[in-house]
């Protein structure tokens, strides 16, 4: 988010960096924060190969840049095939959302970190675009940012049209799929846009996993008065040894998705008038 915000400054030379005392300063260097903002840093680090451990901050502005990123970067995380598929899927859908809907020339800022102890990968994607509410309200009437996030996480809801099935290029399913992946794997998933904040909470291993079309029916926390973020930030944690077969997850998604569309159709049925 800091990198995304920094890139909105027209002349990067106007960014001044105070001497960092934080213990995380070396981490910020290795993740490429100073490099992407073209800032000199007096913090010295010994750079080891990031392969298998993290993906430094990358800026992705076009569809072709995204394809190149997925082809070249995801293999560097040294994942098993099934896990690589899941991570590639998440990155593709989230970054394409930014490219298509955020309306920002700076595109998406993305980084990822592998945590050995928990065997998890944490992915963060941020943009400084128009935000979810503006996008969704091209076709809906969300009252606030949180309501817009709720709509965006529901299957089949897209800002590009109210028509069921979406447009030729958009179905309104991307974020629902990502939330479903996180939900089935019992992982964290966070969306922050404008003043709205939604966090899918980790589910205990003992609880039954079910998918909900309405994100507010999942175990979650939410805020509608966060400090305003112009744009959208999404964070996903994927615990690798819990990653369910993607194929099994799709069965649950198919069922939930169809039910949600059917219920929306039913809600539009006209009622018989009895007088």
């Amino acid at each position, binding site marked *: 988010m800091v990198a995304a915000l920094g890139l909105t400054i027209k002349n990067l030379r106007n960014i001044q960096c105070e001497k960092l005392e934080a213990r995380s300063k070396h981490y910020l260097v290795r993740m490429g924060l100073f490099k992407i903002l073209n800032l000199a840093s007096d913090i010295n680090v010994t750079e080891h190969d990031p392969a298998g451990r993290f993906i430094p901050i990358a800026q992705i502005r076009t569809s072709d840049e995204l394809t190149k990123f*997925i082809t070249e970067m995801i293999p560097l995380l040294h994942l098993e095939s099934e896990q690589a598929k899941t991570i590639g899927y998440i990155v593709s859908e989230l970054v394409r959302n930014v490219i298509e809907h955020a309306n920002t020339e700076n595109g998406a800022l993305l980084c990822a970190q592998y945590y050995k102890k928990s065997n998890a990968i944490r992915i963060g994607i941020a943009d400084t675009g128009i935000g979810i509410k503006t996008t969704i309200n091209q076709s809906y009437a969300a009252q606030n940012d949180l309501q817009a996030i709720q709509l965006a996480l529901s299957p089949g809801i897209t800002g590009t049209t109210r028509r069921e099935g979406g447009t030729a290029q958009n179905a309104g*399913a*991307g974020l629902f799929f990502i939330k479903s992946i996180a939900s089935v794997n019992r992982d964290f998933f966070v969306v922050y846009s404008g003043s709205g904040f939604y966090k899918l909470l980790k589910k205990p291993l003992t609880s039954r996993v079910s998918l909900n079309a309405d994100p507010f029916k999942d175990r979650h926390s939410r805020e509608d008065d966060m400090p305003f973020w112009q744009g959208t930030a999404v964070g996903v944690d994927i615990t690798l040894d819990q990653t369910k077969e*993607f194929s099994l997850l799709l069965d649950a998604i198919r069922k939930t998705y169809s039910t949600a569309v059917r219920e929306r159709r039913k809600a539009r049925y006209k009622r018989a008038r009895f007088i």
Partner: protein
Amino acid sequence: MKHIMIFDQAGEFAENKDVARDIRLQEIIPALDKNEEVILDFEKVGAATQSFIHALISDVLRNYGNEVLERMAFKSCNDTIKKIINIVVDYMQEGLGLEKENDVI
């Protein structure tokens, strides 16, 4: 019959919606308009996103109706890709009030 190899244009991970759109507009629709059968062949494609499959076939279903599934088949799909195709075919038919099942071979 029009036989389209998805791998040749989309690669091992089919996720680029622009590529899907180009296949739809430049290959699928012209073939259907000529009353040809279309085979979408996913051989060597390991994974595909829902967005890719949506951009590939949703507008075809919307414009030609679900009868188009009798003229369009999906070949060499792994289980995951089959399921994603089924999700898109399902929600398009639910949304359009259509009833036919798709043909995954």
